């Protein structure tokens, strides 16, 4: 149950970030992306949840399960790739880019987690 909840939370977070799905943003010069293949599963859910608490909660409620300042992440219509790009590049004027804050694996894990979330309603 807890695992599901955590997955839901992550999905919610990602959804908020992705709610207004843009085309994948061009690579920015100001991020940590290496372009290398990453393994999202290498970052455990507990780690993603901690990162969420520090970085996402300002705008995304209850690990993204509820709408708050930002949209609800659970149930986002964005693809996992789009979620990744939104986390990396942000949304000008609304969401900071996290390309310098999180590494590729963490971003991939976030995206996977967010896409795993299912809205409660």
């Amino acid at each position, binding site marked *: 149950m807890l695992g599901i909840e955590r997955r839901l939370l992550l999905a919610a977070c990602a959804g908020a970030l992705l709610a207004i799905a843009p085309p994948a943003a061009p690579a920015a010069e100001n991020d940590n992306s290496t372009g290398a293949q990453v393994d999202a599963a290498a970052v455990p859910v507990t780690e993603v949840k*901690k990162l969420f*608490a*520090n970085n996402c909660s300002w705008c995304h*409620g209850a*690990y993204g399960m509820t*709408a708050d300042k930002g949209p609800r992440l659970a149930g986002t219509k964005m693809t996992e790739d789009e979620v990744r790009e939104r986390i990396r590049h942000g949304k000008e*004027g609304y969401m900071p*880019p996290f390309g310098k*804050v999180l590494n590729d694996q963490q971003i991939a894990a976030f995206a996977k987690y967010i896409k795993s979330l299912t809205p409660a309603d």
Partner: protein
Amino acid sequence: MKRSLAIRTWLACGVAAACLAGAGVPAKAADVDANALLKADENPNDWLMYHQSYKSWHYSALDQINANNVKDLKVVWMHTPGANKRGVQSVPIVVDGVLYYTTSGSQIWALDGATGAFLWKFEPKIDKDRAEGTVYNPYNRGVAAAFGKLYIGTADGRLIAVDMKTGKQVWENQLLTTEKGNKGYTGAPLVVKDKVIIGADGGEYSGCCGPIIAVDANTGKVAWQFDTIAGDERSRASWKNDSWKTGGGGGWMPGGYDPKTNTVFWGTANPAPDYDWSFDKWQTEGPRPGENLYTSGVVALDADTGKLKSFFQEIPHDNWDFDGAVGEFVMLDRDGKNYVVHPNKGGYVYVYNRDVSGDKLKIENVWHLGKTSNFIKDVDPKTGELIGRRELKEGMNKQLCPAIDGAISWNSGSYNPDTGLYYKIGQEFCADQEVVKTDNPGAYSGKLYLGATWTVVPPPGHEKAFGHVSGRDPITGKVAWEVEYKYFPLASLLSTKGGLLFVPGADGMLDALDTKTGKKLWSHNDGLGHHGGIISYMAGGKQYIAVTTGWGSHVSGNFKPLYGEPFASMPTDNGQLIVFGL
């Protein structure tokens, strides 16, 4: 010709003499000097600074518009600045019939106060890579004016001076670097004598040291700096394990000034992480063991040197994000005592004596504006000590009240000398708060450091969040009247000699209440929520009321989950300036 010239000269002299003879002479832009600022409260025709005067009363001594004729108040002009991400949040100012206000990205607009005619616009080039890196971007809440210049902070950490007549940049200074974390400016500066003072944002970010900086108003050269954290040994000792290196801090709204003692009062921001999992062991354990001086309180600084004279930490080891930066500093003199009244975000209003000779500010009283809070049981009104702290445990803490955005927000109240009442907004909502033992993001890393996730909820015993506006004795807190608001207002208040209290509502309604009773006398739908400022001024012999609209601030983001519509569909990339007259 000679006769005509003589008559014109005589008339001009007569008008000038008449103007100069009375109080309330509109200041010419170039004449706004230290003395004009000292007497801003005696000049109701202009609105010279964010808080109107050093007394921070947000009061207009104009009474053309009054309780008898407010029914005839109507829109006389509007200004639409265009795309304005996260809404207009500023308090306008007026100098000599020219209105200046700011919008997102630190844009300044200069408009004719009588007609709204465009005069100029200033748009600084922002370092987007840096500004976009914080959750406060692209907020801007206003300018300061003096010596023919406007002063404005930017989200990328600069202070800029702009010529008031032309809108051209005079100087800029990159006051904040990223060496110790990414901080910027969203609040308006304060001019005191020959200096411009501004405080940094960034309480939520790993870094140091939340500086309040004063610069020479003419050159932009730094005159002094006070670090709200780790600037002295006492502060460092209150952050065990060198946790000040990730401690946040700041002073993101303008402070006040008491010329009697040449003291600047400034509210300080919260420490990072905002939430601490160490429960009742915070003195020795957790991410920032200790009291975390000088966060979440008030510092009293020498205006010339920035040296700390006195302080009071309203929330020692703040574990709820209830900083002191939000509150205005209402200066009052009563029965031979000099008071400064300062609201804290937690919902308690601190009444200090303005005697700054002691190490700590002397508490005269503390009264409670909030209604549903449970983060503490009370505050000792004699000592200011928190009673019955609700420490947070790792994991879920249900119905923590108020929520992170407090029972009092950064909008300003209004003191009216005609009624002797202080008008202030209270907001009532809570959060189910899950505190998370997160990893340290690294010293000076400039990374968000919140330490929790949450869901906003109505207060216990209430189906919905709500708000209230009350008129109270500012020293005792005794209620003269109170009006409940379904949606808690987020904008500043304005009271006038005309017996009116203007309340810009969250749902777009602008109300005028009777200052003596709270009875609603007039209302107008501005079409969009308010979370900026409202002022009054005179132009061409006529009184105006100017209010900003726009929605999208951090606190306004709670309205969607708390209320649904009309906030779910309210745009967050818009806003206007709306000006009313008879």
